[in-house]
């Protein structure tokens, strides 16, 4: 056994070295990046914002992935710190001349205030778990946003508040370049420092307790872990970290101001999505997920589309879509419950089980009844209500079809090795995408317009009205859902597990078990 363990330490050391080497190479690249000729200011700003979101997602991974606090309050802390910093460095505010507070001091105080609010939030959340915690923190963010919007004289309302830039080298064009580079390096250093800090924390005694808290608060308490202290600690720690990072980001190049837009639920949801996509149990994976996603979203903004489709998707159908997804999830659950009474569940079958068909039928019946009943009761807006239920019907069938085909594929492909399994799935997905594009193009070649009024889609052969800026999020969402369908722990999870030597540990397990079971035979003969 000792031999096995010595070997594994060896492998661990080698992999750790490889990991450090890769990180060092990346660091060197990012340090030299602004100096590469041909890199324009826009690209620097994009990378800089990639760093910022990497810190956001990584710290969220620490909060949610390590400590188990699925919080939506992240951007709230950013706003508290940035607005504090902004108000302190504003002329005449609190009748103090702005020169009294240098931006550095203002940012520092902003971080402290965010930390204090973090203590309060952590304390308020002590008894809340999972979904309740998420709801509370959403409300917290929204309340802060509303207050900021309402208190226009102090906060600038919807227009936002300008912050004194951290780096101010005068107004000349050369100085601008210097300022931008300084901001870039500042954010990069912040990223490196916070990643190191969070890594050390997560791997310390405190990190162990945080993970124990994530798994089971009561059990951890029974084992001697002071839950109250660590819960408050982790909220305070991340609040200070994102507060300082955020106020530096918003006082720097490009932005130089913070507005309530930063607090929109979309920003928070996106930073969470990046973390989940990368793998929320590892801060490094979350940071990488955020950085790459930000870059891709920027790239999508510019990509010329291979075919020109004009999408006229009015705002209301978007609202409908959101609402219908939620309602669908609910109705599906109810339907499943109802059907469960009549059918035996049988998983992994090739064909849809009676249970699933039953669930679909019940769903369709429920929505069908509502589709005729509700418009009949209402006197106004009957058309849009009926349309809404039509969408629900279509969604129900579509969900069923997608679910069934995925399951069918899974059963058919289950015998393949993992890489092949995913390979085939990805190929199929790309194939379907190509087919869809071809189909749409063919459709639009025959007639220049095609609309699908039920879901509010209107396609037409036009110049360029497709809004990639908006649709990239939709594409991103689809990619994310598909990713998580197959890799629940995030894309980088297997990579991180490899660097941590998980597979070696398992080999050790098997080896010891083998030694052990030999022993066992000996025992049994003796008795």
């Amino acid at each position, binding site marked *: 056994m000792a031999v096995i363990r010595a070997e594994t330490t060896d492998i661990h050391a080698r992999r750790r070295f490889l990991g450090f080497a890769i990180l060092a190479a990346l660091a060197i690249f990012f340090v030299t990046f602004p100096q590469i000729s041909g890199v324009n200011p826009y690209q620097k700003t994009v990378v800089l914002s990639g760093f910022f979101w990497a810190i956001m997602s990584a710290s969220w991974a620490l909060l949610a992935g390590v400590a188990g606090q699925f919080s939506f309050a992240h951007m709230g802390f950013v706003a508290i710190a940035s607005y504090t910093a902004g108000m302190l460095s504003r002329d005449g505010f609190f009748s103090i001349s702005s020169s009294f507070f240098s931006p550095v001091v203002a940012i520092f105080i902003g971080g402290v205030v965010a930390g204090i609010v973090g203590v309060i939030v952590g304390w308020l959340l002590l008894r809340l778990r999972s979904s309740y915690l998420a709801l509370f923190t959403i409300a917290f963010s929204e309340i802060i946003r509303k207050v900021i919007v309402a208190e226009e004289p102090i906060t600038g309302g919807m227009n936002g508040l300008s912050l004194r830039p951290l780096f101010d080298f005068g107004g000349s064009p050369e100085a601008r370049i210097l300022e931008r580079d300084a901001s870039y390096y500042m954010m990069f250093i912040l990223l490196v420092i916070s990643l190191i800090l969070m890594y050390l924390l997560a791997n310390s005694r405190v990190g162990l307790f945080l993970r124990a808290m994530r798994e089971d608060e009561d059990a951890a308490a029974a084992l001697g*872990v002071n839950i109250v202290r660590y819960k408050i600690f982790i909220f305070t720690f991340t609040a200070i970290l994102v507060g300082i990072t955020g106020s530096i980001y918003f006082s720097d190049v490009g932005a130089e101001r913070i507005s309530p837009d930063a607090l929109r639920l979309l920003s928070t949801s996106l930073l969470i999505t990046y973390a989940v996509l990368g793998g929320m149990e590892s801060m490094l994976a979350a940071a990488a997920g955020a950085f790459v996603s930000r870059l891709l979203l920027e790239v999508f903004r510019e990509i010329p589309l291979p075919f020109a489709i004009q999408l006229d998707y009015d705002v209301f159908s978007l609202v409908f879509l959101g609402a219908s997804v939620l309602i669908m999830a609910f109705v599906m659950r109810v339907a499943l419950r109802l059907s469960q009474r009549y059918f035996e569940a049988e998983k992994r079958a090739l064909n849809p089980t009676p249970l699933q068909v039953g669930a679909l039928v019940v769903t369709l019946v429920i929505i069908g009844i509502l589709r005729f009943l509700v418009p009949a009761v209402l006197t106004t807006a009957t058309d849009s209500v009926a349309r809404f239920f039509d969408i629900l019907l279509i969604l129900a069938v579509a969900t069923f079809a997608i679910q069934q085909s995925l399951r069918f594929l899974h059963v058919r492909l289950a015998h393949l090795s993992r890489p092949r399994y995913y390979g085939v799935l990805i190929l199929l997905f790309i194939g379907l995408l190509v087919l869809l594009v071809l189909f749409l193009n063919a459709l639009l070649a025959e007639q220049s317009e095609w609309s699908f009024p039920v879901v509010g889609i209107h396609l037409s052969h036009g110049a360029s009205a497709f809004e990639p800026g908006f649709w990239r999020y939709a594409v991103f969402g689809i990619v994310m859902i598909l990713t998580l369908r197959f890799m629940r722990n995030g894309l980088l999870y297997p990579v991180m597990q490899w660097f941590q030597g998980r597979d070696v540990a398992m080999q050790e397990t098997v080896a010891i078990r083998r030694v*052990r079971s030999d022993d066992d035979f000996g025992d049994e003969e003796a008795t």
Partner: protein
Amino acid sequence: MLHLELHDVSKNFGGNLAVDNVTLTVDGPQLIGMIGPNGAGKTTLANLMSGMLNPSRGTISLNGRSINGRPAYEVARAGLGRTFQVTRALRRMTVLENMLVPAWARYPNDSKAQIEERAREVLDFLTMSHLAQEYGRALSGGQQKLLELARLLMLDPNIIILDEPFAGVHPRLQQTIYAYIDRVYKDGKAVLLISHDMDAVFELSQRLLVLNFGALIADGEPEAVRSDPAVIEAYLGEDDEEDAAQASGADNANGAGGADR
């Protein structure tokens, strides 16, 4: 020091009196069995003792200090550890990490290497050293029970409460648990062994507590308790004594239970 005292302790959930005026003292190393039908309040009493619940009335003190209103982690660090009837492995942490938690909570200044060495010894003793790197969620039910016992050894408490350790456990594993109880007793700890099955604890305990409808109806030598009419009544209803003797002699009749709660 090892002294646990419950004085007139009651606990009600709404109108349901789960623990009814219990007074008892645990002083010095001993093997105590606690039995009682399903729903008698055994788990609730364990929760009260370990600080996970607060008594509605009465006082509980550990080593002379009241633990009323004190958080569970303080009780654990003061030297009272317990297992859970429904096992609570930390699922996305390895077995070794599971064991590191209580050890580091109790002894913050020990180095990780020191603790891991102790953990390996404990794992060896519980015949689960091959599982050191396994995640909690990957363990079988029996292995999770062992993990709870292992964590408890790492917490190194003076009083150990085992809530239904034999429920749903393979006979071979049962032997391991016997050895475990023997070991901690010889280390000078008090063990409170909770079960709804009298036979399982009868052989092991030096003192037997019987709980019925939340009230402590007997406390004493196992032999004396076994022939106590109130206990027989609680366990066997109106049946006569001959039946009772037969039933308790029957081989582990309701041992497969453990489904209470």
